[in-house]
Structure formats: C-alpha cells, structure tokens
C-alpha cells in the first residue's frame, strides 16, 4: 500500500479533502473557499493568525460546525456538511483547545462518554469501563487514576487524557488537535509529540493546529497556512523556514525576527515604589513573596503553570484572598477584598481568560471599553455620551482595534482584537499599577507585537506594570526586571541586560518535580 520512509512525508493516499469550504457568521466571513487535502500517516499542520479561520476549519471537518458552502470528502464519500456523529463514524476525532470534559464525572466516564459500554439491555457496564480506561491510560503511558474526578486533574493532564481518548479509544483515522499545547506544560507537550510520532507510524493522519511556528516546523510533514479565512498555501515542511512561513502567515513583513532579548538598557527608575509587597502568602499557592514596583517599571513574573504567578496577581488584585502579608500602594497599606476595591485603589487586573473574565460578550466594543472608566465620563449623574465616544474612539485608534464600528458586538471580533478591548478597558481606568495576567496568551504574532509595544510604551509610561507570560520571549522583550517563581517562592531575579535564556529556563525549572514518581 504505502510506505513511510524516515522523516519524509509519507506518500499515503488522500483520506480527507476539503473543497471550496465557506463559512459565514453574523458580521464576519470566517472561511472563504478554503481547500486542503490530508494524507494517511502524515502530520499536517494548520497555522495562521488569530481570526484566520483555523478553528472554524477544523470544526467544519469534525462536524461541530456546518459550512455555508463547499464539499468535504472523506475516503471517497462527499458531504456538504457533517454532524459530529457522522464525522465520528467516518473516523474523525477532535481534541479542542480548552478541554471539553464533564468535571464531576470520573476520568473513566469522561473517556467513554457518551458511548458507554453497555449490556444488551442498555445498562452501563461500569466495571468494564473502568478496566478499559485503566488499560488505555497504561497503553498511552499516562499515570492517571481513572477513578479520580476529572476536575481533580490539572488542566494539562485533562488535555492529555482527551488526547489519549482521541487516539486510543475512538479508533479514529483522522485526529484533529486544536491548539492543544496551549493547555499543556512543556513536559506534557513533549509527551504529546511522542504520542503523535507513534500514531503517525500507525498510519493515522493528524491535523495539528497551532500558531507557534517553532512547534509546527518541528513536528509537521506538511503545513497549510490560513490567512483571513483563505488557504494561502500548503507546503512540504522541508521547503519552509521561519522566515518563509511567517511571510505566508502575515503576507507582508517578516515577523520572525522575534525578540532581541535584553538589548536595551533599563530605563532608570527613581522615586518611591508604587507598589510594595511584603511576605505575601497564600497557602497552596505562594509563600513569603516580597518585592517593590516603581512607576514606569515593567516587572515580569516568570514561572511554570502552578508556580504561583497567576495566583499572585489575582491576590494583589483582590480577586482571591491573601492569608498573610501586606500590600502597600504608594506607601499606604491596602487590603483589597474585591476587584472593585482594587480599582478604586489604583490597581487594575487584566484577567487570564479574556472571554470568560474580561468581556461582556453581548455588548458592544464601546460598552466594553468604557466599563471600568464610566465614573470619569459622567456629567453629574449621567454618562456624557460624547466624551465616552471620544474616549472609546481614541482607544480603538491607539490600540489598532479592528472593528467596523464601536457599536459592533464584541463577540464578533477576533481573539487578538478581543484581548485589545480588555487591555483598552483597563488602560482607560488610569491606574497606578497594571497587573497583566498572560496578556499575550493565545494571540498571533502580529497582535502580540502590537500589545507588547503598547505595554512598553503606553502602560509603562504612566504606571507600574507587572506581567506574566506563557513564554519567556515576551517577558525578555519588554521587562526591566524578571522575578522567577517556582513552587510559590521567588528563586531568582534578573535585570535587563542580564536576561540569559538558559539561566531563566533553569531557574523556572528550579525545583524540578520528576514526572510521576
């Protein structure tokens, strides 16, 4: 039939073909005339900016979303649209970006849901389910207790369980991984690559969506690039490098330049700190953290997921509680019991999950942007509509938010622009301290550079900034100082000019907990 030679893309036959796929949503065109073909035994990467249509495309393939037009051809059969059930029957499995699980069900139940193993009468065979689940986890090499509740597992492991489900249980021929590594720790990501390599040899086709060029170039055989809802190219990996790939993605300037870490000299900060933290502790999250933040300074908090960096920001912002320790804003001791108090005290928080915690989806861009600063826009008891519009238009301009009008509903914007709306909202609140929790998470390169520039030039020009980031590059490119957390404690501090990638990397992994002792 076909043979797989080394790292060359297998000349397997085509098992999936997309022809002229178009998808329209109210207010936007998600896909237009997208074309793609996928072969057996290949890892086919799909890359593009936020809003390029990657998720929409795979949702069409997996049956989650029916297309407005076009044909899906699987193993010779042509369909104008699929349902999830039909796609499953044709052997298509999908693992979505955020793990789709039932938190209160056990791992075993989540694995088999909704296709429970049943007796002829209809009764569920729990014993068999638990046993099979255990066997599956072993086969995949995962040390997971299948009787634990899904919600007891950290996000990373939940995602791995779902990946195992797609590969081992559903006996799929085409497995779609939608930005799965976004929820994985670096160790778990490496583990995933191993599973992918093994499955590939078994003849499965894997659709791997990501917006990380490095990852795509590392594991894919062929890459399809999406831009503005269209497939602009499908290339063999061996013909691609970062430069060429980014040209396809952005269609213009070369953004693969990346960050020249730590080049510029740190701006000298004088004066009293705007924020001081002493001995801050929250059991189970972070311990005895102390540091200062000066106005105009950008302080990065680096660390793995679970190192306490997000918890720290949330605690200072009043979203979560603090067990011990003191916080001083401009010399005055404060104890914020809610974000409302924090805002009033000049400390604003940019949430990690912008959709759930940052935006009012059914409201307009204008309403979202002005929400935290309405008090400044009033005349007497009423909102001054003209002032509001002026402020909002100013923000849209300054942050280059792409939207047909300020009245457009925020849910119709692309991911990068939604993040900009949340950033704009807190910027308008004119605080003393910005707490930015992964401000560039899940955003494509173009928007990311834009946001980092905004942080460096705008936010820091007025206030002190603390930010965390999923990757080191972002911190290295804008921060004046980086604190490294590990296991909830500060293990190291780096100053600009002395940002060594290796040192930082090691520091982050300082107290390395070996996987599954």
């Amino acid at each position, binding site marked *: 039939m076909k043979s797989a030679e080394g790292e060359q893309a297998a000349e397997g036959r085509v098992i999936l073909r997309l022809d002229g796929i178009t998808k329209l949503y109210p207010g936007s065109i998600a896909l237009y005339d997208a074309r793609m073909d996928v072969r057996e035994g290949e890892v086919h990467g799909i890359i593009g900016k936020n809003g390029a249509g990657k998720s929409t495309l795979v949702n069409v393939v997996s049956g989650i979303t029916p297309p407005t037009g076009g044909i899906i051809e699987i193993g010779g059969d042509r369909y104008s649209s699929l349902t999830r059930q039909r796609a499953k029957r044709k052997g298509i499995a999908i693992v979505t970006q955020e793990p789709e699980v039932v938190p209160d069900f056990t791992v075993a139940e989540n694995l088999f849901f909704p296709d429970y193993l049943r007796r002829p009468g209809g009764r569920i065979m729990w014993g068999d389910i638990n046993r099979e689940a255990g066997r599956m986890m072993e086969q995949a090499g995962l040390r997971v207790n299948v009787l634990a509740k899904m919600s007891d597992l950290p996000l990373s492991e939940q995602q791995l369980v779902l990946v195992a489900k797609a590969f081992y249980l559903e006996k799929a021929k085409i497995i779609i991984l939608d930005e799965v590594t976004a929820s994985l720790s670096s160790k778990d990501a490496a583990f995933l690559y191993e599973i992918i390599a093994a499955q590939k040899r078994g003849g499965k086709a894997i659709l791997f969506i990501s917006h990380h060029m490095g990852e795509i170039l590392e594991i894919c055989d062929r890459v399809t690039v999406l831009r503005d809802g269209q497939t602009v190219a499908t290339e063999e990996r061996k013909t691609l490098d970062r430069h060429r790939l980014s040209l396809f993605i952005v269609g213009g300037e070369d953004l693969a330049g990346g960050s020249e870490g730590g080049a510029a000299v740190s701006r000298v900060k004088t004066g009293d700190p705007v924020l001081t933290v002493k001995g801050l502790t929250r059991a189970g999250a972070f311990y005895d953290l102390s540091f200062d933040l000066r106005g105009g300074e950008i302080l990065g908090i680096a660390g793995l997921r679970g190192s306490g960096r997000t918890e720290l920001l949330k605690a200072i912002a009043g979203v979560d509680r603090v067990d011990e320790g003191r916080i001083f804003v401009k010399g005055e001791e404060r104890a914020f019991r809610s974000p409302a108090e924090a805002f009033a005290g000049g400390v604003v928080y940019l*949430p990690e999950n912008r959709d759930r915690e940052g935006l*009012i989806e059914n409201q307009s861009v204008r309403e979202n942007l002005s929400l935290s600063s*309405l008090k400044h826009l*009033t005349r007497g008891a009423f909102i001054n509509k003209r002032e509001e519009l002026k402020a909002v238009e100013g923000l849209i301009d300054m942050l280059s938010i792409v939207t047909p009008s300020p009245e457009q509903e925020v849910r119709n914007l692309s991911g990068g622009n939604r993040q900009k709306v949340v950033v704009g909202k807190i910027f308008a*609140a004119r605080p003393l301290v910005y707490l930015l929790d992964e401000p560039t998470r899940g955003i494509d390169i173009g928007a990311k550079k834009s946001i980092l520039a905004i942080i460096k030039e705008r936010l820091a020009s007025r206030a002190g900034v603390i930010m965390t980031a999923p990757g080191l590059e972002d911190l290295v490119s804008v921060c004046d100082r980086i604190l490294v957390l590990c296991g909830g404690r500060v293990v190291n501090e780096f100053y600009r000019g002395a940002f060594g990638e290796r040192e930082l990397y090691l520091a982050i992994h300082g107290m390395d907990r070996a996987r599954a002792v």
Partner: protein
Amino acid sequence: MRLQLVVLDNLIWLILILFFLVNVFFTPNFLSYGNIVNIFYHSTILSMLVLAQGLVLLTGNIDLSIESTLAFAPAIAMLLSTKWLPGGLNPYLAILVTLTVGGLVGLFNGVSVTKLGINSFIHTLSILIILRGLTLFFVPFAIYKLSGTYTFLGRARAFADIPVAVIFTLFVFFTLHIVLKNTPFGRYVLATGGNPRASYISGIDTDKMVIVIFLFAGALAAVAGMLAAGRQDAVNNTMGKDMVLLSFAGAILGGTTLSGGRGTALGMLGGALLLGMISNSLTLIGINVFLLYATYGILIFFAVLLDRFKVKLRELLFHRENMRTLRELETAPRGK
C-alpha cells in the same frame, strides 16, 4: 439593514401598533377615549410588576416573590392602621410603611441571592409562598374603606380624567429608562447580567448591583399593591395572585432576555401595555373569563417564541449582509 435592525430591537412597538389597528376595526367599543384611558389604567398594576421582573432579569436573576409582596406590603400597612396600632396610622406613614416593607423583602432577597449564594428562583419561590401564607393568615379576606390619601395613587384622576396612576407609571418607566441607558449604575446593572464574572473582575461591585435591583423590585411590587388597593379601595388577601407569570410575559415581550444583560425599560412598558390591550380587547369581545385566563398562558408561550424569532431574524439579516459582501468579493479583483 440598519433600519431593519432598529425595527427588530423595538419589535414590541410594531406589534402594539398592529394589534391596536386590528382592534380599531374589529372590536366593538374599542376606539373611544374612555376605553384607551382604561387600557392604560388597567395596565398600571401589572406594569409595575413587569418592570420589577424585567429589572431583576437584567441582572440575570428571577424574582417570583413580587406578587406576594404586592399583597403583603399594603396588608402590613393596613393592619397597622386598623387593627394593630390603637391610634391607627397616619396615612402618609402608611404609604411609607408599605414601601419600606416592600423594600425590605427585596433587600432580603438580594442579600440571600448574593451573600448566601442561594439560587434566585428557589429563594424567591419560598418567599412567594411564605408571604402569601402570612397575608392569608393576617388578613381576614379583606380590609376595606381605606383612607383617601392612601388610595390617591390608585384611584384619583387628574386632568382630562386621566388617572394619577397612569401618569405616575409613565413617569417611573421613563425615569428608569434614562437611568438604565445613561448612568453608570444602569450600565453596571446590564454588565452584571451580561457576564457577572467579567463585571466583577472589571471592578464592578456586582453584589451591590443585584441587591439594589432586588430592593427596588420589592418596592415596585409594594407600589403595585398600593395601586391595586387604591383601585378597589380595599386590601384583600388574594391580591396579585397569578400575576408573576404575566410579569415574565410582559418583560420578555418587551425585549428583555431571560439570560440577562439585555433589555430596556420602555420595552418593558410596551410589553405590559400589550398585555393590557389584549385583556381589554378580549373582554370587550365578550370572551369567557376562564378562556381569558388560558389566553395568558398562550401569551407567555408566544413571548418566548418571539424572543427566539428575533434571534433568528437577526442572524438572517447578518447572513444576507454577508452574502452581499461575498458577492462583492467575487466580482471585485482579489486584494491583499
């Protein structure tokens, strides 16, 4: 398309106008000054409840207790006036007591829902039953012959024979409409309903918003009770019964969503007026009172259907717009 969107968002008024015209031609005795005024007058009580429910819905909650507060608050005031206090109660104080009792019930609801985290449906359901039970217990069928001051709001007529109640109701609605649209408080309320978590993180005191709205809803229910007491010149223990479901119908017909965060006060007024108009016209036609009751059930069904219909229509409009854009893309040369 912009015009079509505007019409869609204000659909209730279109329906009102259409229904009005239908009645003008087909219902006997409909188009007379007295009857029109009557429609407004008879809508006032329910419209206070519609407004109360609508406001609570905006925050993403439900208040089932308002129909019992409607009876309970005036009942307490009148019991104090007639039986419990030896010297009776100054009628102005009676009004104050009514509003305070309503507000306190609302406050209790708001605090339970926010600070204790009790689901609003369950909590207000229990209050609904408790207050009705208490009212039935304390009020022996009815207390009548109320003071003129107390019944003023519900009974009196102003210029051109227009009831004070109508003027008052319109005033309340217009004020609320402006507050919701043009003040930070109004926007915070809508944001809280639209996404409570995001609102909280954005620095809004979401608990306070919900408590204030529940308090106000309780007070509005008390006002509704006063209007009813005024109209019948009595406080009876079954006042308001079965009205809470209609309060939903009115709010939803007026464009308030069940999921929270969307709706206008004037829309709620439209919904209440439509309910009043339907009741009026069916009575004029001479329909059996029990069938009229069943009609209300149909209305609630219709209200929810309308909500879904609007969503679909909105999508259709956007879809057509997209198709138009697509066609332009196909004919124009490909850019970037």
